[in-house]
């Protein structure tokens, strides 16, 4: 276990930056946190959630796949060579870390997504335990412990110090390169922090929310529930929930005609959009209710069915804050999951 005085954090960031690009949550002018590359003077923000989740690092909103360059009647294909070398991310919360696991199941199973894989392998993740979880947090529902965030290097903070605990070889290697900035410390202070956090988690309003009634092979039980009408009736069909969600993984592949060729790129898509998975014969889900249902069924039933019961929600609470009409997965779980839900 290492530690560093909070006021000296900049030294640590500087040291890491010497080794590799470092990204960390920073408050922007709208007072929202977003991940930014550290440069001298960049202040770390203790804000719980960044607006966009940390999935951006591995599955960015748009990503070039390849270019087709035309000259006259000839076409030349140019592969994407923009993938990042090594980089480190500081301040990832437990929920976001868990989301990587959700994405891994999709992108790293055959056929492996090579862009995603490269990015995952090149990253060192510093997590941060959540000292002050918010009312919208319900990671506990999905057995995520905000007091025990894991990652390559697990971090904790109290008033004065940040404690760093490397867990993986990648994490240890990187910390070893920056030891000069760090002091040694025992497990004790962290134990105290963890205990405090766990106590706080128990007092959260959504602590008792349970997704137990959902899970693998429950399609028939939930698909035709009449409550979907009511839940979806106000849905605007925008993509906010899917774009702030750390586990949403749908994308579209599009071509952009640059005038002297075509750029083929993929970008996030949203199952809430009316043209989602549109095919020559039209859309399979023609009504907003169906699209809305798709999203939550996927998170709570289809994904678990295909991934040994693992839910594709991590309880980060972003959608609770950001949905323009304040519809969200908690309301869905409560409505469909019965009264036993907190």
């Amino acid at each position, binding site marked *: 276990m290492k530690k560093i005085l909070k006021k000296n954090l900049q030294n640590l960031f500087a040291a890491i930056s010497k080794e590799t690009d470092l990204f960390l949550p920073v408050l922007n002018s709208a007072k929202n946190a977003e991940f930014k590359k550290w440069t001298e003077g960049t202040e770390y923000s203790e804000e719980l959630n960044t607006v966009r989740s940390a999935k951006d690092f591995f599955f960015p909103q748009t990503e070039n796949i390849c270019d087709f360059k035309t000259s006259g*009647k000839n076409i030349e294909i140019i592969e994407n060579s923009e993938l990042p070398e090594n980089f480190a991310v500081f301040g990832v919360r437990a929920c976001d870390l868990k989301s990587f696991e959700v994405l891994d199941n999709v992108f790293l199973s055959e056929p492996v997504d090579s862009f995603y894989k490269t990015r995952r392998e090149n990253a060192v993740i510093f997590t941060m335990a959540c000292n002050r979880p918010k009312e919208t947090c319900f990671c506990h529902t999905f057995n995520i412990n905000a007091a025990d965030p894991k990652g390559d290097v697990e971090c904790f903070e109290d008033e004065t110090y940040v404690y760093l605990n490397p867990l993986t070889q990648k994490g240890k290697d990187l910390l070893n390169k920056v030891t000069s900035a760090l002091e040694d410390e025992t497990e004790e202070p962290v134990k105290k922090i963890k205990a405090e956090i766990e106590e706080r988690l128990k007092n959260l309003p959504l602590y008792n929310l349970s997704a137990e009634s959902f899970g693998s092979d429950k399609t028939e039980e939930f698909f035709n529930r009449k409550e979907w009408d009511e839940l979806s009736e106000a849905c605007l069909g925008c993509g906010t929930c899917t774009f702030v969600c750390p586990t949403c993984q749908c994308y579209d592949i599009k071509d952009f*005609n640059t*005038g*002297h060729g075509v750029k083929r790129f993929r970008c996030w898509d949203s199952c809430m959009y*009316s043209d989602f998975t549109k095919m020559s014969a*039209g*859309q399979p889900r*023609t*009504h907003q209710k169906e699209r809305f249902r798709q999203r939550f069924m996927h998170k709570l039933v289809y994904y678990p069915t295909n991934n040994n019961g693992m839910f594709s929600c991590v309880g980060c609470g972003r959608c609770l804050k950001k949905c323009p009409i304040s519809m969200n997965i908690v309301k869905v779980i409560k409505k469909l999951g019965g009264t036993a839900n907190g």
Partner: protein
Amino acid sequence: MQRIGVFVCWCGSNIAATVDVKAVAEALKSEPGVVFSTDYQYMCSQAGQDLIKEAIKEHKLTGLVICSCSPRMHENTFRKVAADSGINPYMVEIANIREQCSWVHKDKAIGTEKAIILARAAVAKVHLNTPLTPGESEVTKRALVIGGGIAGIQTALDIADAGYKVDIVETKPTIGGKMAQLDKTFPTLDCAACILTPKMVEVAQNENVRIFSYSEVTEVGGFVGNFTVKIKKKARYVKEDVCTGCGLCTEKCPMKKVPNDFNLGMNNKGAIYIPFAQAVPKVATIDPNYCNMLKNGKCGLCAKVCTAGAIDYTQKDEIIEEKYGAIVAATGYNPISLDKFDEFAYNQSKDVITSLEFERLTNAAGPTNGVLLRPSDLKHPKTIVFVQCVGSRCSADASKGKEYCSKICCMYTAKHAMLTRDKYPDTDVYVFYIDVRTPGKNFDEFYRRAVEEYGVHYIKGMVGKVIPEGDKLIVQGSDLLDNKQLKIEADLVVLAAAIEPDKSARNLATMLTASMDTNDFFTEAHPKLRPVESPTAGIFLSGTCQGPKDIPETVSQAGAAASKVIGLLAKDKLKGNPCVAHSDELMCNGCSSCERVCPYKAITYVDKEFRMPDRTTKVRRVAFVNEAVCQGCGACTVACPSGAMDLKGFKSKQIMAEVDAICK
């Protein structure tokens, strides 16, 4: 994928001197979709056209790009070449490498480079071109003339003479209009009735003309070549086809106190009346506001005296629906109301009259049988003051009167002054003028004669006020040249009131979707080049409804409008411009934005049932473009927020493709 042929014209040395035409043709060969590219000295020549035709055949071309002079020059030539070779003419695009390239650049390298880019842009557009066919619509071979004054009569006669059916709709019981009320006409001083009434008779007797007198247009639908018009024939309580016009009823009618509007209320008539002796149709009309029989069922004298049995107190308004290919507006003018000009005492003294009233006072058929007597005491006026520009040439912010010059007042005032001095040499005649405007054949000579031969006193200045004093009118005005204020003791004051479009024109314009200017004159399609056409296709303008005019001008414009109508009716079918707006109904919101900006009212809305993506059906309000009316400006395409509206031949994608090619 199109198979495009590119043809680069040298235009002799016009293009070839500044553009390396061979290099252009060569460069274009490598453009995607271009399967053939060549150059030739004169592409528009027969040999050049043959070259294109052969290439179309040999290379199975589907689209052509001609790099040549301006499309305004030869676009039609090359479209015809395409059509002759079995390609849709709208698959041709011109790259203007002469006017907009070789002629404005000197350096050959630069000219060549630009020509290649312009050609590429044309290729990019042709890629997205689709075959277009102009819509066709039948032409109803009948014209409608609204207004039966000299303008309407002349237009109708000219149309009828060309062999087409024409209907005149006139709100008054007789045709003839303002001209029928006039005494003499300037500058030749022929009697108005003598030249007008033969025309009235001629039009009445022409078998191609129908006259709907005492009638109004109430509804207009359709579009050029296919108008449907509803005409309300007001009940005149006299059977038009039975009445012989003998006039016995008008003499016997016991109700004698009806103001005679033909004489501008200066005398009275009966409740049953014939406006004037030469009225057409010469039939009696009962004024329901005064007829005792119609008001309270007592009297019935006219029916008793009518030997023909033409009186029918039960007559009702009748609506006639008729189809027309063209409509001419000839609604004419009226003098403005003088209520806002108290200083001239028009409403205080009977002896302050308008010029039109003066016409009636000097007309042999008028209230005084042509003897100039002043209305108040029927004495001969010894001093007459004419005031010009009453209500004309006022600034907009003066909030009374009209901004424009009424154009005819200078001349008729000169005429009045001259005739007065001619007939009554003992009368002193003064004319207050601001400017005397006499452009026109023999006009200024006429005015000079009034001054020089007839001794009319022209005073440069304006009347400030008219004060009735005893049986005199004190006219106080300025003489600017003498720098004096004059006070003239007059017996009669004649005001040259401004003229304005007839009030019915505004309502009519709305029905016709024809535009008007702020003064309610109809606007022309083009002020110089299309002065007798309204911007709305199939609507034509005749006479003062378009702007102040004298009689000769009115008659010539009436003839011009008629010739335009004849040109339209001579066609069996109207071929439209295929580059018209088109709305994608699935994307249309029904918001009416396009409808609001359309200058031609070509867009209407329909409720239509649609099958929605979720397999339900829904009735939606969507825009419908009448292709026969649309002129293809494209205003609607930008007003449409969803992009449902596009313009054929200039689709958004085509224009963007050109942008892309140019900016590359």
